């Protein structure tokens, strides 16, 4: 297995599972248990799986557990990962919807950094919050924040995007400045894929690419379109693609998903998945042509 996805599913009764998974229409199946694909980690997993198949590579493996917000599931998963870090022989790990917890975060990061082959580290959602709060954000290879989360990364004392100071919902216009601030404060990963009206690909604090077309406004309210973007970049990185090219291709492919699916704001992510192989193919063709 080339890549490991670590996250939670929105069910209290879902026990810890670590292994391969498959996607069947609107559900993922992990070790005989089925979970609907709506948003969150299941949406990331489904996207990464479909994209991996389209790329002709092994699908990722998953380490997931049920957590509906108490944090109990996340803590069980953290403990299991720390105890079994030797099982991480993957090229990379994508951390996703997990309860932010700095103590557990540090144990996991230090454990993975001690491995003989340190995997590439990607963080999104709750685990990205913990990574920033820990002060070790710059140990990560990629964060995938949205505009509000970018403001959170730039605010050196904010504990959560809810408490980000002073940006008054104007984050979109301020993204280049926020990138500079986050990088200067060592609160950003080595690379960023900032998703928004314009997607920014950032390497070492420098914007290397902007992607703003095609634009489908109905994609913004659809829960899980950020998760599909992280799923796409996960699969592209697992295929061996270079980081900035993977980010740019993922951003374009996610936008083509909107064009091909032509959604209303009431769509769900599962309705976008059938269009993913074609969206990815178009994006790869476009990026290759432009290089």
């Amino acid at each position, binding site marked *: 297995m080339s890549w490991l996805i670590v996250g939670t599913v929105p069910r209290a009764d879902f026990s810890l599972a670590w292994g391969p998974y498959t996607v069947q229409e609107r559900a993922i199946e992990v070790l005989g248990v089925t979970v609907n694909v*709506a*948003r969150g980690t299941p949406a990331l997993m489904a996207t990464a799986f479909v994209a991996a198949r389209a790329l002709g590579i092994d699908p990722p493996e998953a380490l997931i557990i049920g*957590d509906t917000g108490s944090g109990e599931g996340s803590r069980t998963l953290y403990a299991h990962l720390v105890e079994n870090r030797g099982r991480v022989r993957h090229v990379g790990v994508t951390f996703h919807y997990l309860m932010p917890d700095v103590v557990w975060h540090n144990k996991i990061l230090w454990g993975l950094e001690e491995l003989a082959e340190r995997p590439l580290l990607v963080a999104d959602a709750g685990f*990205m919050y913990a990574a920033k709060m820990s002060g070790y954000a710059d140990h990560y290879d990629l964060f995938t924040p949205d505009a509000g989360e970018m403001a959170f990364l730039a605010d050196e004392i904010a*504990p959560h995007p809810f*408490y980000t100071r002073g940006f008054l919902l104007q984050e979109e216009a301020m993204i280049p400045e926020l990138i500079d601030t986050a990088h200067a404060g060592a609160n950003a990963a080595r690379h960023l894929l900032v998703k928004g009206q314009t997607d920014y690909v950032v390497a070492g604090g420098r914007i290397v690419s902007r992607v703003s077309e095609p634009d489908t406004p109905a994609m*913004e309210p659809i*829960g899980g379109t950020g998760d599909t973007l992280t799923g796409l970049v996960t699969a592209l990185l697992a295929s061996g693609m270079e980081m900035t090219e993977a980010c740019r291709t993922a951003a374009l492919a996610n936008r083509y998903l909107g064009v091909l699916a032509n959604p209303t*704001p009431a769509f769900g992510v599962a309705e976008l998945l059938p269009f993913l192989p074609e969206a990815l193919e178009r994006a790869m063709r476009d990026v290759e042509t432009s290089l």
Partner: protein
Amino acid sequence: MNWLRGLLSRKAPSVRGLSEKGMLLYPSTGEVIRAEEALRQSGLEVAVKGPPPDLRQGCDMVVEFSLVQEMRVREVLAERNLQPLRVAVAQDHLLEPVSLFQSKELGSYLMVRAANMKITVDRRDLRIVNVSGGGCPDVPYLAEMLVGHTLDAAPEPRSLGQTLCGYALQLAFDEARRQCLG
């Protein structure tokens, strides 16, 4: 109550001074949300805020209250079995949560954003059609519980959520209700 005596014995407040507010610390954000609800129901003015950095453990919130009402606060919390881990004096460094909303009309749909959470409603039948944003693990769960319900029949996010993202969703939900139901 030494801290309160200390506060009252000061001749004049310094420039930064001590806040007249106190804060209630809990081991989990779920308890913070329940404590806030209990205190509000009892007519007490409280607010949920971010803790100062030296008291932060993770995805934290604290309940801010007026120190002069501490006895009443403790009584209400004891009745509900919601005693805090600790009661502390709030200094000026309590962080303010995002308080502005952003609304966007998308055809017949209304999308309301509060902090990092968005809720989208079909104005034609007041059905919640999407919930997006956020990163805490109750977000996908809350979305499943809310999507498909109408604004007047959907469960309150605060009744199910346990994190700051859940709290932000409650604010967006309240604002969507205000705009659609008046």
